[in-house]
């Protein structure tokens, strides 16, 4: 299997000499094509920082990140934007849809900034909308949709460009349990049928249990790793809970 994402000994420090915070303290791992990886950790464990450096929103202090074999820590300026535009898809906790555009236009925007023609845009938007079951909200504005629908629109926008890697930051954070479940099932669907590679950050064991692999982070280091293997989702969930109990701290609050 080829490595879509390869992280080598990255570190990220904040602050100055007198008060140094090590948000990431030497993390290495790989993600293979078609994997659905969840990163779990309590608030302040460094999981969001990890996502930010992978998504090139933030820079690492040391170490290297390779996506599709390319070292993204050396990218700058517009080549960084180009990389982000063409190789990554983003899903955020608060959706980040443009409130002035309809669902269709929000999804289309990701393609139109790549100078793709309107006919091709239409074909792909409709196809993706079908996959995510949002065909009937395409002409609505974000404020006219439910949270779950908004997040699925955001997901459609993230995957429509056929990115190498989809990054999701607490995608279920603002959703009720029913919408969460529906969204995660869609993630599984995208992962299995379209072979989308997904890296998701969450502090919720239920959300994490939909992934094929879970990485646990504590104090900027990898604490443990679980693979789903042949387990059912319920069994996988139970083993995640075991690790979470071991981790202790405020992660328990999420249960």
């Amino acid at each position: 299997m080829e490595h879509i994402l390869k992280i080598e000994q990255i570190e990220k420090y904040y602050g100055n000499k007198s008060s140094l915070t090590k948000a990431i303290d030497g993390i290495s791992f790989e993600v293979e094509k078609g994997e659905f990886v969840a990163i779990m950790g309590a608030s302040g464990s460094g999981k969001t920082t990890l996502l930010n450096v992978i998504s090139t929103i933030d820079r690492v202090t040391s170490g290297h990140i390779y996506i599709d074999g390319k070292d993204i820590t050396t990218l700058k300026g517009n080549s960084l934007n180009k990389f982000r535009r063409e190789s990554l898809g983003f899903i955020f906790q608060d959706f980040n849809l443009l409130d002035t555009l309809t669902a269709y236009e929000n999804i289309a925007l990701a393609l139109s900034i790549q100078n793709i023609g309107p006919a091709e845009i239409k074909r792909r938007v409709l196809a993706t909308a079908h996959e995510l079951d949002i065909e009937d909200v395409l002409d609505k504005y974000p404020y006219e949709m439910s949270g779950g629908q908004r997040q699925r629109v955001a997901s459609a926008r993230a995957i429509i460009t056929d990115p190498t890697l989809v990054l999701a930051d607490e995608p279920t954070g603002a959703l009720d349990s029913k919408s969460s479940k529906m969204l995660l099932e869609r993630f599984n669907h995208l992962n299995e049928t379209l072979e989308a590679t997904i890296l998701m950050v969450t502090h919720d064991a239920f959300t994490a249990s939909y992934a094929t692999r879970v990485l646990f982070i504590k104090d900027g280091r990898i604490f443990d790793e679980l693979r789903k293997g042949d387990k059912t989702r319920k069994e996988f969930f139970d083993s995640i809970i075991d690790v979470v109990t071991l981790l202790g701290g405020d992660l328990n609050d999420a249960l």
Partner: protein
Amino acid sequence: MMLFKLSIANIVKSFKDYTIYFFTLILGVAIFYVFNAIESQTVLLNVTSSTSEIIGLMTDILSGVSVFVSFILGFLIIYASRFLIKRRNKEFGVYLTLGMSKRKISIILFIETLIIGLLSLIVGLGLGVLLSQLMSLLVANMFDADMTKFSFIFSNDAFVKTLIYFGIMYSIVMLFNTFIISKCRLIELLNSDKKSEKVHLKNPIVSSIVFVISCIVLGRAYYMVTAGIQELETVDKIFLPIIMGSVSTFFIFWSLSGLILKLCMSIKNLYYRGLNSFILRQFSSKINTMVFSMTVICLMLFVTICILSSSLSIKNSLSANLKELAPVDIQFSKRVDYTLENTANREEDELALLNLDVVDTLKNMGIDTTEFIDESVEINIFSTPDLTIADTFGPKLNEILANYRYLNPHSQEKIISISEYNELAKLYELEQFAIESGEYIIIADFDPFVKIRNEVLAEHQNIEVFGHILKPKYEKCQKGFVEISSNHINDGILIVPDHVLADIKPIQNILAGNYKMTKKEDKIELERQLEKKLKENDGNFTLIKGNSKLIIAEASIGLGAMATFIGLYLGIIFLLSSAAILALKELSESADNKKRFKMLRKIGVDEHLINRALFRQIAIFFATPLILAVIHSYFGMKFSIFILETFGTRELMRSIIMTVVFLLVIYGSYFLITYFSSKTIIKERI
């Protein structure tokens, strides 16, 4: 003290938000000072008494205009401070949750307004004093005075006046802020940035219908003030097209956003290219939320363009007219009144005075014209109750009266003989004419009358003058005039063969000539003495009136200066206000925009694409009201050309160019400041 520190910190921190506000206040103060300081600048000029009278009138009008201007600026400042409060809702929310009382927040705002007010007054007055030095050059140029020595002028009156006016405005703003704060609720303050915008796209069919109707109404209003202008006989009728224009402007903006959006969306290649869909949506949501402001801005820009170009063209035309219409230095006119009430109970020798010519009559008054007049011509003007406008117009009279109701058909035509007119024309350097014994010519230069008379002349209307039947030589009026003046006001004089007027008594003698002296000071001194002598003989039986190039020049200069200063004052203030409102509206949305652009950046939009989107968004926003205002102005100017007909409009192009320069400088700099401030705001990372 803590509150004071907080206020200072706030101002420093949100300086970027205050830039436009501060800039506008400073300009407002400076302009207010400059135009109120004009009076003290004219004091130093060496001008005649009649000019200083005009200056007095001008400063009176300017201070009246200042009251109006202070209202506009007052509204603008309140509008601006409302935006600034809105922008800081969250901050106030935090203060309230920390347990700070609303009274204390009001005090913070009070201190802030005070500091900003004081700073803007200091800087604005400083700038105003500097600008008014430049203004004094303009003033000297306007009044044709020499600026041989430069002197620094500081106007105490204007200074105090600016302080008082702006003091009152700031006090009102403080009261207003306190009121706003006392009304607000904590939950709204804290959640103010979470509200996502609701997009109400108007029904495209309704939009289209409204748009088409508005355009038709607007077109009708345009027609009424241009081609259909003859139907606007009374002043109050002008209000109908103004109201029609304003209302249709409102509805054009109301329907515009939906229509443009729908139109662009149907052109898929355009809409789904780069960030176009985003830019268009941004624009349409902005237009939708400020239809009323857009209307006001558009109308203000329209008024600005018309005021500026009309007032500048008045000044330019007046100086151009002066050369053409006052070709000689002095003109004396003696009315010869033979009516019964005038001649009753007069002695024989007194009546004989009526037959004297101008030179001799003046000599009787102790004025020897040979002493100061070089070359001169004396002419006689005739008229008779048997030849009125009604008689000249003949059978066409009723048709013409139906169209031009302000005509008085009973006024008597003025008549002059061809040889006398040609003598005068030679002196004036005008075209001379030749006619056969049965012909007549009409000279006129007041365009509306020229048009009416041409209609009659085209019919080859014969007239009867003192028993002779004459036919018109030309089918059109000829250019020319007899009395010197500042404007084209000759509504028609008949030129007839000499023999027609033989043995007839004139009703007016006119003497026109040039002075022997060449220096301006000598001429002024001479006219001072002439005026005195004429005044001593005021009650005389034979009244003589004098009119001179200098008097006309002063009147036109005064009128021109008045028009220019009032035009500039109002024009600049209007322009400032409309640009400031647009800028504030755009910047007040910068918080929302920041989120949107941050998101665009996250999905990988290039920086130059983002900057271009921002630039286009702001450019379209600034251009929209301007475009409609320019269309309005095209027709508005046609109307004002009609109104200002007598002044002549030859210099219109120059004044339009000047107006464009003003527009570009003020409107353009607001646009650029807005663009660069927005750019820094969206660049900030949280």
